[in-house]
């Protein structure tokens, strides 16, 4: 990823002009200087679009994250060269074929077949094979969010989750680790239930990126965050890859990030609530963003 902008420092510009014009009303070359501020940034992670599957496991503290169900499923594409990123949220109750295990809710794929089965199920929907899979449990989420000093999230409505003490108002809120777990879980007060919850997961990811971007210049901040992440994540990313990825993510421009939650129709199978996910939409999104991590069309087409 490489970006370059040029901006002139306005106060310096004004001061310089005032000094230049001085009392004589004409420029004085000897006393005038302008400060041209030019930022440049790039990170060598991987060229082209990179796809990461983020899974939020409902495994509780003391159990392996891969033993829990995947209640948060986000397929994230990033092209660090182009500075673009997309996130596709998959409702946890999506009724899908789990390769070799019949039809089931997609979130059951994690305890049944681990991250490989989850990656396969997501690939079947979007036609995109994730390069990396990152799984996080609720305890790890709390530690990760606390480790970066909390995150700021924007919510279109008030959200409460009594178990975690979460009680936030519409708009921008700063939340800590326990509240982040509550925000990730909350769905009963949301008008679109699990679809809105998936959108909340995307907002939390934005919050993490925002926090990294805000503090990336603090000495030791990124390293501490990566160390914390290494302690709580289950991933096929090595330490060096995670470090590069985190540094690259800290440079993401959130205005270039597009998010979308798969649509679907609620249903009931064997007395259990499921979602018949819109497979055409998933395939279209995958075709659209596969190569450049950018949506040319809209989420709904």
């Amino acid at each position, binding site marked *: *990823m*490489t970006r*370059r902008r040029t901006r002139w420092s306005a106060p310096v510009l004004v001061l*310089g002009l005032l000094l*230049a014009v001085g009392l004589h009303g004409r*420029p*004085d*070359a*000897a006393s*005038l*200087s*302008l*400060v*041209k*501020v*030019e*930022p*440049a*940034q*790039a*990170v*060598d*992670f*991987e*060229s082209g679009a990179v796809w990461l599957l983020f899974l939020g496991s409902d495994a509780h503290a003391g159990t392996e994250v891969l033993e829990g169900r995947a209640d948060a499923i986000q397929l994230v594409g990033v092209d660090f*060269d182009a500075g673009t990123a997309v996130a596709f949220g998959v409702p946890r109750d999506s009724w899908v074929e789990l390769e070799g295990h019949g039809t089931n809710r997609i979130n059951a794929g994690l305890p049944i077949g681990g991250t490989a089965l989850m990656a396969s199920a997501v690939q079947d929907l979007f036609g995109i094979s994730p390069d990396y899979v990152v799984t996080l449990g609720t305890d790890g989420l709390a530690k990760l969010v606390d480790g970066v000093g909390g995150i700021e999230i924007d919510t279109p409505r008030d959200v409460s989750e009594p178990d975690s003490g979460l009680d936030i108002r519409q708009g921008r809120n700063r939340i800590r680790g326990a509240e982040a777990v509550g925000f990730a879980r909350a769905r009963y007060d949301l008008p679109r239930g699990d679809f809105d919850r998936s959108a909340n997961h995307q907002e939390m990811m934005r919050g993490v990126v925002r926090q990294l971007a805000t503090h*990336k*210049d603090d*000495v*030791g*901040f*990124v*390293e*501490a965050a*990566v*160390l914390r992440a*290494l302690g709580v994540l289950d991933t096929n990313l090595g*330490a*060096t890859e995670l*470090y*590069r990825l985190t*540094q*690259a993510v*800290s*440079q993401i421009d959130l205005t270039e990030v597009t998010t979308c939650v798969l649509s679907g129709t609620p249903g009931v199978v064997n007395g259990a609530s499921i979602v018949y996910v819109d497979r055409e939409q998933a395939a279209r999104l995958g075709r659209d963003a596969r190569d450049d991590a950018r949506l040319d069309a809209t989420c709904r087409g």
Partner: protein
Amino acid sequence: MVDVAAPGAGGGGSTLLRHLRALVVAALVAGSLSACSDPEATAGEPGPKDAALEVRLTSGTEGLDTGARSQVQNDLGDVLSEYVVDGFLGDYPREDFVRSLDAFTAGAARGAARDIDLLTAARFGRSDGLRATRLLAEISCLTVEGDVVGATAHVDFRFEVADGDAPPQPVTLRGRFLMDREDGTWSIFGYDVVRDDAERVGS
């Protein structure tokens, strides 16, 4: 600290650059992190002396012994010294600023080539030369199981451009250089910097 000696005009181009890098590396390997000097480096090159590169380990190495810390400090200082010498110092006029990208990984070098005007003194290639007035790198390390696998150098590099009779023009480069180690060799895999050049306006 490590001296990054400033050659003046009339030196032997690439030979002198190699000499300078060798001097910097030698000082680092010797563990001489206090300011030092080598008369040969500036022999016949009168002019104000450059500031020494100061490399400070600020976080992430608390669990390492003194030898390991010195090794990391030397290795990272080596990479940064090579970059500073090739990117800003040396004999002027010069055009070989791209040499400084040797310190970058291949992927980062592609971006850096596009940003070469900001990451080096390429825009001052026809000037009389640059002098380093402050070279500070504060290093935070990522240490996993006793092994330093990544590091951020928070840098404050300041120079002055000499060009004829004009007053020295200050040039600063601040921000972060991101480094990791592949096959035992440290290199720069990313950067996030801001370049401030105070430009003279008028004739």
